[in-house]
């Protein structure tokens, strides 16, 4: 249904707009180092409360913020085994090309399908609104992509089986 999806995306969008307040913060422990604090979690005073937004039992979104970085982890709906495999392969394909996306994380956080890591440098180079729109657009498009892939797999399987079995007729 469109309406619960719209509410879910609106909630994530508002939370991201509030949470994306990043500034440069050199590492406190090591001189001349600058690390994304949300990944290391060494100093609790630099971290904000993580927020988990669930749409239902299968889909959820974890947003963790710190002073200079923000991590968004998504779990996508997977109805059956085939969708499970397709999601894993498709998102692994994207994650391996994380350099091209810049804000993507190479490995998803444990328990989720895909993760984004946004640092203060990204916020300086790119517009905050556009980053948030990208993430929301990504979430909308993922569902469409997975269902398209599923349909094409089923169609191909059917065509191949028909052709193969023709020789026995």
């Amino acid at each position: 249904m469109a309406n619960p999806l719209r509410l879910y995306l609106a909630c994530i969008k508002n939370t991201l707009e509030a949470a994306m307040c990043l500034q440069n913060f050199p590492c406190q422990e090591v001189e001349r180092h600058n690390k994304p604090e949300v990944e290391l979690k060494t100093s609790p005073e630099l971290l904000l409360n993580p927020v988990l937004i669930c749409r239902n039992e299968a889909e959820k979104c974890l947003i963790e913020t710190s002073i200079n970085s923000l991590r968004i982890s998504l779990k996508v709906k997977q109805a059956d085994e085939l969708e499970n495999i397709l999601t894993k392969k498709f998102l692994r394909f994207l994650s391996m090309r994380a350099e091209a996306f810049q804000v993507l994380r190479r490995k998803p956080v444990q328990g989720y399908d895909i993760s984004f890591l946004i640092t203060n440098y990204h916020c300086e180079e790119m517009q905050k609104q556009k980053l948030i729109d990208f993430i929301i657009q990504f979430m909308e498009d993922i569902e469409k992509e997975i269902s398209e892939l599923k349909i094409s797999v089923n169609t191909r399987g059917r065509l191949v089986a028909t052709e193969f079995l023709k020789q026995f007729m």
Partner: protein
Amino acid sequence: MAGGGGGFVEAEAIIARIETKSTKIESLLKQYKPVEALKTALEGSPPKTLDERCKSANWIVVHRALMAIKDIEGMLNALDVEYYDILMKYLYRGLSTGDRPTCDQCLKIHEKLTERAGLGCILRCLSDTLNTV
């Protein structure tokens, strides 16, 4: 030792208070006054306790009142501004449960509350590490 004993007694007192509150809320819900019920539930929120049981007990009470709300606009009209922050914290707790009806209700209220209270409310909720719900 005395401090530890005192802390334990305090938690018990808070849980007893929450139980009296929940009976009051049940009666209010029976009279079809869900807005009043929510106000009562949010009022005695014990933010400074570290005890998980108090927080869970209060969450159960607030959850009951939240699920009974049908008219969200009216509820937000009747609620005082100082309760917006606490309500937002409870909404995020509801969203983290993953239970479908709770999440639906919380998402609806979250949208309307953000329109009224703005992004500052969300940010206060994220940054307040001392008074968690």
